[in-house]
């Protein structure tokens, strides 16, 4: 976790590790009423063991800190991911939050997320005074995510004979969903992902790359090792499933309960990412004003190209 780069007013920034039980003390001493738990790692370059520690043990500590009759917490938002469903051929084409028989995926990340959500669900049952929302964010495309790095390759190795549907979520929409959840009081599980779908070959064409269907559909472990060795891109187990069978969720519950849906469609997310590849990253933000100016200029440029002006303006307000 990095320190905030620009000046923060009326805000305190405390370093703490969720793997140790400091949250309870912090919450009670400062009389905190809203907790947004985002320390959930879905796409990590680290070992699965460390991820498990952060996700499950960390969540347990956060929940333990917020539990109890003496707790001032009345609102808890927990980040989860679309990866909790995994991807399987027998799933319905649009996955609803509580379709029967879903959530038995066998990749480590999906198992961790399922456990974390179960813990959160139990917490919500035992603490009726606290309104709990679990937000299942869609797959995001940035330079840091595996999906983003994978699609940025000039020759993209794909599974032979498969062309799955992809659904993406823009970073700004993910942030807004979390913010809306923190300020609202809706309870339950919510899928958050962009409208519409793209097929993988289409996504690769938009990125200006070339699909090479070279990975055999059986023995996926070997394929993942081979891709990592040849290109340096790590494909987590749940992403290998995604690249074979695809996963699309239904966000109608988000729409009805929050009255809001992500502003970027799947296509717009990918277009923005493809254009962003040519954009230079912001360097050395020395004074805060300089940083904000650069962010502003980049946003203006992006709006011009995509025609997302109104959406970005609404977000900045």
């Amino acid at each position, binding site marked *: 976790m990095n320190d905030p780069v620009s000046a923060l007013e009326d805000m305190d920034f405390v370093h703490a590790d969720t793997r140790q039980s400091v949250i309870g003390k912090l919450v009670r001493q400062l009389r905190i009423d809203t907790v947004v738990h985002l320390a959930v790692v879905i796409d990590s370059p680290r070992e699965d063991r460390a991820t498990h520690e952060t996700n499950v043990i960390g969540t347990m500590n956060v929940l333990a800190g917020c539990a109890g009759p003496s707790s001032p917490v009345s609102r808890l938002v927990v980040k989860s991911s679309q990866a909790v469903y995994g991807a399987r051929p*027998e799933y319905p*084409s649009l996955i609803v939050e509580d*379709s029967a028989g879903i959530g038995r995926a066998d990749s480590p990340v999906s198992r961790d997320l399922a456990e974390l959500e179960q813990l959160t669900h139990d917490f919500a049952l035992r603490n009726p005074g606290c309104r709990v929302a679990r937000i299942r964010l869609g797959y995001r495309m940035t330079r840091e995510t595996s999906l983003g790095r994978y699609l940025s390759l000039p020759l993209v190795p794909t599974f032979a004979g*498969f062309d799955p549907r992809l659904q993406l979520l823009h970073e700004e929409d993910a942030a807004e969903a979390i913010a809306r959840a923190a300020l609202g009081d809706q309870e339950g599980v919510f899928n958050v992902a962009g409208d*519409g779908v793209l*097929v993988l070959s289409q996504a690769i064409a938009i990125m200006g790359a070339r699909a090479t269907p070279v990975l055999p559909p059986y023995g996926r472990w070997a394929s993942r090792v081979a891709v990592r060795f040849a290109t340096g891109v790590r494909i987590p187990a749940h992403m290998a499933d995604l690249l074979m*069978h695809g996963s699309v969720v239904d966000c109608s519950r988000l729409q009805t309960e929050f009255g809001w849906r992500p502003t970027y469609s799947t296509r717009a997310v990918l277009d923005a990412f493809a254009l962003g590849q040519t954009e230079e990253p912001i360097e050395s933000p020395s004074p805060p004003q300089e940083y904000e100016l650069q962010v502003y200029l980049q946003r203006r440029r992006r709006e011009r190209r995509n025609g997302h002006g109104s959406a970005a303006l609404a977000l900045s307000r």
Partner: protein
Amino acid sequence: MSRLPADDLYSGTQSQRRRTSRNARVVNAPPPLLRLPRTMRRLQRQAPMLAIHALSELSGRLRDLTGHELIDMARVMELMQFVYRQQQLARRGADYAVDDFGFDAEWTESFLPLFKILYRDYWRIETAGIEQVPAAGRALLVANHAGVLPWDGTMIKTAVFAEHPNPRHVRALVASLFMGMPVLSWFLRRTGQTVGHPDDTRRLLERDQLVLVFPEGVRGTGKLYQDRYKLRRFGRGGFVSTAIRSGAPIVPVSVVGSEELYPMIGDATPLAKLFGLPYFPITPFWPWLGPLGIIPLPSKWRIQFHPAIHVEVHPPEAADDQNLVMALADQVRDTIQQGVYENLKLRRGVFV
């Protein structure tokens, strides 16, 4: 307020900026390494046209000689159009959209000429009662399933798209097993099929689509040659509940002819287990002749669409009434079975 200098720098699209750039230079395309003589180049350009002329000449001569239309130029032109359309589609790059189920209508329609050849010339399909399929709005088509590979599904789709006054795409429901197979999974999704899951059926019907379901499932395609005209059990009637819930009429469809595509004389269960398949067919040609065994026999087909059974008159709560659901499922099954027997009588022989 003065404009920021960066605004001018970054205004316009990328190509506009490239055009107005001070550093822009005009670059000619490099000459090809091998430049054919002019006559050869002209020939190359005109080759398709010349081929069509030659074929039509040949077709005319053959007609005069034998008195029969041996090469039908209309069909040749259809095939040429198919090739041209494929080239066009290959050029569209990422400029297309699929729906939430992965259906690409443009791409699917481009395959129609190929399926029409099978429909008209290979299986000589006679379709009756196409007007029973509603021209607009939702409906659930329920058909019998036979033949080792689901050719009956593709032919029902072709029938509705090619023969209906208002061409519509039928979305068939497929066993999840096939959705996990390479090549099949993308082809099926691209052409509008989806998983046989109640959620998917309801969603498609709510979008006013035509949905095709084979309640017999793989038990239907995997039946032996001796039971070929006998319908299998219709599951637990889940398709009826879904139709009642989404207020869609059921149109029963009887298909005759798909039963004889691959006369399945045996089922090698151990091999099926090994490959994770529901059955492993043994026919007189498969697996003995290798890939040649996959060629279906040219049987004569009849497809009949029956009058719709209006299950949407029942309130949505009736979907949980197992008694009613099973009764309706039996009614649909009987209609289809009767249709199969009647069409067998109308057909003169298996191959004529």
